[in-house]
């Protein structure tokens, strides 16, 4: 997606425009990142799927017995509240 043949490419980034000091965490200019984000709609859908699959895999393991016992035990005892 790189633009080529523009003389501005020969200049250091800071000389291109006033906002060139705005970089993202990856060290890329913000405007470049925005383009990538737009392009990556399907990439993002894929990441979302993987993230949920990983998370749901753990959720489906339910409540470990020792944690269930803990909640029931603490719930049954007097907690000193009014």
């Amino acid at each position, binding site marked *: 997606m790189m633009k080529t043949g523009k003389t501005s490419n020969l200049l250091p980034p800071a000389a291109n425009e006033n906002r060139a000091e705005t970089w*993202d*965490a*990856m060290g890329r200019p913000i405007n470049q*990142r925005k383009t*990538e*984000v737009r*392009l*990556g709609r*399907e*990439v*993002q859908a*894929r*990441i*979302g799927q*993987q*993230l*949920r*699959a*990983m*998370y*749901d*895999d*753990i*959720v*489906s*393991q*339910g*409540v*470990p017995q*020792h*944690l*269930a016992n*803990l*909640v*029931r035990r*603490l*719930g*049954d*005892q*007097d*907690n000193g*509240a*009014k």
Partner: protein
Amino acid sequence: MKLDPAIRDQVLATVPSLRAFAISLCGNVDRADDLVQETLLRALAHIDSFQPGTNMPAWLFTILRNLFRSEYRKRRREVEDPDGRYAETLKSHPEQGGRVEFSEFRAALAKLPSEQREALILVGASGFSYEDAAAICGCAVGTIKSRVNRARTRLADLLAIDSVDDFGPDRATRAVLARGARG
């Protein structure tokens, strides 16, 4: 006074998701289960500060997140390279907390700054609204949105799926692509 069984059931119903959040944050099941246990102890000791009818998951997630952050800060002081150590833990136990098939994704997730990781998980996996996620993390809604965006962009880079063209290949090919990106 005994705990209201309805409240108790709400707590229990939140545990699986709370645990998934903790494992995603820690990358280590044992540490995550300790964190969940500590969260439950603290929550039940202060159950009076929970207002019935409000969002139980958000309340428990907030407690867990605060515990995790304070522990993380403590570790940072104690250990010179917490991220390196954390990465090693992941490498030696890639199967923890889930099936092996997620190890590549999990490793990429672990490379995100923790603030981006938690924002992405809360919104993208736990299903919280941006508003709830902001309340849980104690920051502005706009901050959560930008963290989620940066997390997604970084993950795409780490997984070497920069364009739609990279989708077709099977898992083995994607692994090669990912290696190339790392090299």
